[in-house]
Structures are given as structure tokens and as C-alpha cells.
């Protein structure tokens, strides 16, 4: 087997395949569970797992509700305070009152799904653009509905920022409209591309190790370099998993703030 054979037989994209028959050895659930194409596949399994594990953890951690918290309760309360502070800074007290549960749910779900995906052989729901686009469109529609319900026609002040001389509206308004409607696109692609490219990169670089070993003993010693890089990138992926959940929730807060206070 040559180097080319090995590096090509390593298929880094395979980890993103959704298996509708669920015949994987690790999660061999019966195929009869699904009807046609709506099988309970691995994507659905991990989305349910991310939801269930997060909810179960918070239920279990907050069950004592002690005045002096235990370790698990500290983790739960820190997460709560972290997102609470984020919503308050970006959207104000009114945003906390209206949107805190929504943003907290989004953050926890994305964080849970990303972290679950860090286990080898596990599926990452957020590496599929259909999942991230659904959440981004959900946020976009919420902004539209809340914006028009709360402000009525004044919501269009979003496109006419105050405090600039009126001839500038000919330039600023098209830019504002364009940036407003490209929000769900960039919102969805940012999360998807980060997770997708990160997981792909780990697989690609890990694939260099067997290729170098197969090339002979001289090259085999060099394989320590991609091995070390894989570990380093894996560590970076943990940071990215948290960071992208944070950024997604943060951008949600900023967009929702626009819905509450459209006049800039």
C-alpha cells in the first residue's frame, strides 16, 4: 500500500454521514423504530441526548437547592449566572425578563451538543447546517415577530439610524437592510463551519500518522509531529466548542436587543 492509497482511504468526511438505517455497531438500534426516512437515526439520537443530558444534569444539580451549594450546584449556578450576565449586558433588564429562558436553552443545547461531539465516534448535530440554520431562522423570526409586536411600524427605524445627516440615508439604509437580512445566514454558517471544519481538520491531520508510518521507518519517526498536532487541535476544539456556543448566544442577545430597541 502506498502513501497515496492510505491517505485517500482515510475518509475524513465520513464522520458527518447520517445513517438512516442505524446499523452502526456502536449504537445498533433496531431499524423498525423508524418509518421510511424518518428513522430514529444517529443525528436524532444525539440531539435527544444533548437535550436529555443537559436537562437531567440541571434537574439533578439543583434538586437539593442548598444555601451552601455542592459541587454540581456550583456548576449549574455558574452557568446560569454566566448566561444571565450576558443577556443583561447585551439586551438590558427587559431582555432578561423576556428572553433569558430562550437564550439559556439555546446556549446549553449548543454547548451540550458540541461537547458530546468531542467524544471519538460520536455524532455532532451542530456540524450539520440544517440544525444550525433551523436555530438561526428561529432567532430571526423571533426578532421580526417581537420587533413588530412591540414597536409596530417604528421597527423600521432599525434601517434609519438616528443622528446622521439625511443624505447619508441613501447609503446607510441599503447597507442596514442587507446586513439585517444576511444575519440568519452568517449566524448559521458561523456555528456550522467552525464545528465542521474543526472536526474535519482533526481527522485530516490524524490521517497523516498512518500515512507516514506506512512510508517507512525514517518517515515513521516524523509521525510524532502530526500526532502532537492532533492533540493540540483537539484541545483547541474544546475551546471552540464553548466559544461558538457563547458567540451564538451572544449574537442572539444582540439581535433580540435590536427587536426591543430598534432606534439604535
Amino acid at each position, binding site marked *: 500500500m502506498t502513501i497515496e492509497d492510505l491517505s485517500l482511504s482515510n475518509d475524513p*468526511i465520513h464522520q458527518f454521514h447520517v445513517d438512516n438505517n442505524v446499523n452502526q455497531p456502536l449504537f445498533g438500534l433496531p431499524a423498525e423504530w423508524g418509518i421510511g426516512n424518518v428513522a430514529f437515526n444517529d443525528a436524532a439520537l444525539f440531539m435527544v441526548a444533548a437535550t436529555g443530558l443537559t436537562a437531567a444534569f440541571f434537574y439533578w444539580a439543583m434538586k437539593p437547592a442548598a444555601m451552601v451549594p455542592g459541587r454540581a450546584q456550583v456548576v449549574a449556578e455558574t452557568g446560569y449566572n454566566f448566561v444571565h450576565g450576558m443577556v443583561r449586558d447585551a439586551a438590558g433588564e427587559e431582555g432578561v425578563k423576556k428572553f433569558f429562558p430562550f437564550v439559556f436553552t439555546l446556549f446549553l443545547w449548543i454547548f451540550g451538543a458540541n461537547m458530546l461531539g468531542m467524544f471519538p465516534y460520536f455524532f455532532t448535530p451542530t456540524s450539520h447546517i440544517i440544525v444550525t440554520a433551523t436555530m438561526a431562522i428561529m432567532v430571526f423570526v423571533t426578532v421580526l415577530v417581537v420587533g413588530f409586536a412591540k414597536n409596530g411600524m417604528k421597527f423600521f427605524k432599525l434601517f434609519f439610524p438616528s443622528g446622521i445627516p439625511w443624505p447619508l440615508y441613501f447609503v446607510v439604509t441599503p447597507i442596514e437592510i442587507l446586513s439585517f437580512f444576511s444575519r440568519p445566514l452568517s449566524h448559521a454558517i*458561523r456555528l456550522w463551519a467552525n464545528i465542521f471544519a474543526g472536526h*474535519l*481538520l482533526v481527522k*485530516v491531520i490524524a490521517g497523516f500518522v498512518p500515512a507516514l508510518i506506512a512510508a517507512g521507518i525514517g518517515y515513521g519517526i516524523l509521525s510524532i509531529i502530526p500526532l502532537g498536532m492532533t492533540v493540540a487541535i483537539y484541545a483547541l476544539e474544546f475551546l471552540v466548542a464553548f466559544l461558538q456556543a457563547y*458567540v451564538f448566544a451572544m449574537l442572539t442577545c444582540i439581535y433580540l436587543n435590536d427587536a426591543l430597541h430598534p432606534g439604535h
Partner: protein
Amino acid sequence: MDAEAAKLIGAGIACIGMGGAGIGVGIIFGNFLQGALRNPSEAPKQFGNLIFGFAVTEALGIFSLAIALILLYAS
């Protein structure tokens, strides 16, 4: 031109975009350090903004990397 060759060239061209993201991330961290050294007591409060700016800028580099990887492996 061979389609396979065009794909590889396209992947290479797509990676140029990562250079721009590299410049942007450098500017963000450089300016943060500059500000942090001038007023260290205020620096931790801006950490959220730093990470946010980093993530938004880095995402653009990731976009071009994703395009390159899709061209190489998924198309």
C-alpha cells in the same frame, strides 16, 4: 483543464482567505495587549469583548478553510 486539478487549485485559492483572518486576529490580540498594558486593571472586564471579536474574525478564516476542505474531500 482536468476537473480534479481544478478542484485542488480551487482549494489552494480558498486558503488565501485564511491569511486575511490571520491579520484580523493579530490586530485584535495586538490591540488588546496594547490596551491591557496601558490599563491592566480594566483589562479583565474586556475579556468577553476580546473573545467575541476573536470568534467573529476567526469564523471568516474558518469559512475559507471549510470551502477548501469541501473541495478536497466532499465534492
